């Protein structure tokens, strides 16, 4: 309720304090983008399937949010993305939430350092993210699944073991690095190309919101 106060012959109207917004770690813009990024992680599978490319591109949304809204938003996107995948596709994907966290955090850090301002920087960021994600996923695959997943990567692990005679654990790590070293740089290049096409006004809004 408004109250009237007279000060220096001027009537000043005082209103009760307006409740502050609820404290949360993400801007509204980031909150609105994350569900679309999660959906993008799943929807790009249709594009990859149509093109019959030997990659997943299931982290493009996570990398995009991390670059636009910062590492924390990237981490949240990774967690939500793998949780939703676990609910919609297979509960086995819950186990890979730490990998999504690594991708979101590293992409956010790379974005903060300006790696996505050039094509070369994006490829370099993709390689670093790819190796880190591969090592994280290899640890999970070795600990939970004996080094093999029921996918193309599992067959690649067997092929590497057959060709180089290394242990299953080493073959699992090499297979993961080979897969992710192709997938993540391509994802980062795609994000770089999208950022180039994005209206500057929108990019600036994200940067302001993340600051």
């Amino acid at each position, binding site marked *: 309720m408004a109250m009237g106060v007279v000060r220096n012959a001027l009537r000043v109207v005082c209103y009760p304090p307006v409740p502050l*917004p*609820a404290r949360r770690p993400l801007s509204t813009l980031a909150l609105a983008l994350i569900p*679309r990024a999660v959906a993008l992680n799943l929807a790009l599978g249709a594009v990859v399937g149509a093109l019959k490319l030997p990659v997943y591109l299931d982290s493009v949304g996570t990398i995009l949010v991390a670059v636009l809204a910062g590492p924390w938003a990237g981490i949240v996107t990774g967690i939500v993305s793998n949780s939703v995948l676990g609910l*919609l596709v297979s509960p086995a994907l819950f186990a890979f939430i730490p990998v999504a966290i690594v991708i979101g955090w590293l992409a956010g850090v790379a974005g903060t350092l300006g790696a996505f301002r050039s094509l070369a920087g994006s490829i370099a960021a993709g390689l670093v993210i790819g190796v880190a994600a591969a090592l994280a996923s290899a640890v999970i695959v070795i600990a939970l699944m004996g080094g093999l997943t029921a996918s193309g990567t599992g067959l690649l692990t067997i092929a590497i073991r057959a060709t180089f005679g290394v242990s299953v654990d080493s073959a699992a790590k090499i297979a993961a690095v080979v897969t992710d070293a192709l997938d993540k740089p391509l994802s980062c290049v*795609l994000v770089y190309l999208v950022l180039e096409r994005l209206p500057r006004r929108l990019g600036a809004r994200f940067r302001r919101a993340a600051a």
Partner: protein
Amino acid sequence: MTSALDRWNPLTPLAAAIALVLVAFAGPQPWTPAAVLALSLAIALASGIGGKVTVLTLLVVVPTFALLVLLDAAFPEPAAETRWIPSRAGTLDALAISLRLGAAIAALGVIVVGVAPRRLTRALAARGLPAWAAYLVIASLEAVPDARRRAEDVLDAQRCRGVAVGKGTGVRGRLRALPALAGPLIVGLVIESEERALALDARAFDARGKRTALAPIADPIGEIWARRVIWLALAAAIAWRFWEFAHSLVIAQVSRS
């Protein structure tokens, strides 16, 4: 999807599923995961979702077991005599890993198939999950079908404009087509998020204070106690395993000295 689990507060089956997964990994192998797998499938059958949970479990367990046995048969340990015949130890190892994985998939599969994600998120929000986190899960689940449909639309549109897709284009050609196919989809979703942010702000998404649920989910006292018992039993089981582990270490040290 409706199941018999809808009669329960979603947090109770969730607590049971988490406890079963942890017990499957912490308990003596391979009998505990085998028991957890059987129990989870029995619960799924009793809830009317047995078929879906079994398929979900088999889709992961069978290929994993087959690949592990194949790996063991193709590359036997140096002491083993015959190639392409799986060893007993290797097969038992593969069985243990597959059972553990199957137990986890079946226990979580009961939640994934039998509990509506929206209901689960609402129950979590009632127990203190922040509104923004609940929004992220529900909005993501709702955005997925729309994004998939949009991806198909973009694919069709770009094909009509002459973008070569599929066989006969070579990996290089298909890689070149990727930005043309993925670009409009991604840019469209980012631009749309700005409108959604304005809508969220306009609807006072930031407002502080306790929210009232439109359709509150019942949490009877019996279920609250059931969850407490589950957590206590889980803590006791993990403590018992730790004690056993520490005990075996002490025995090993004594026998060495």
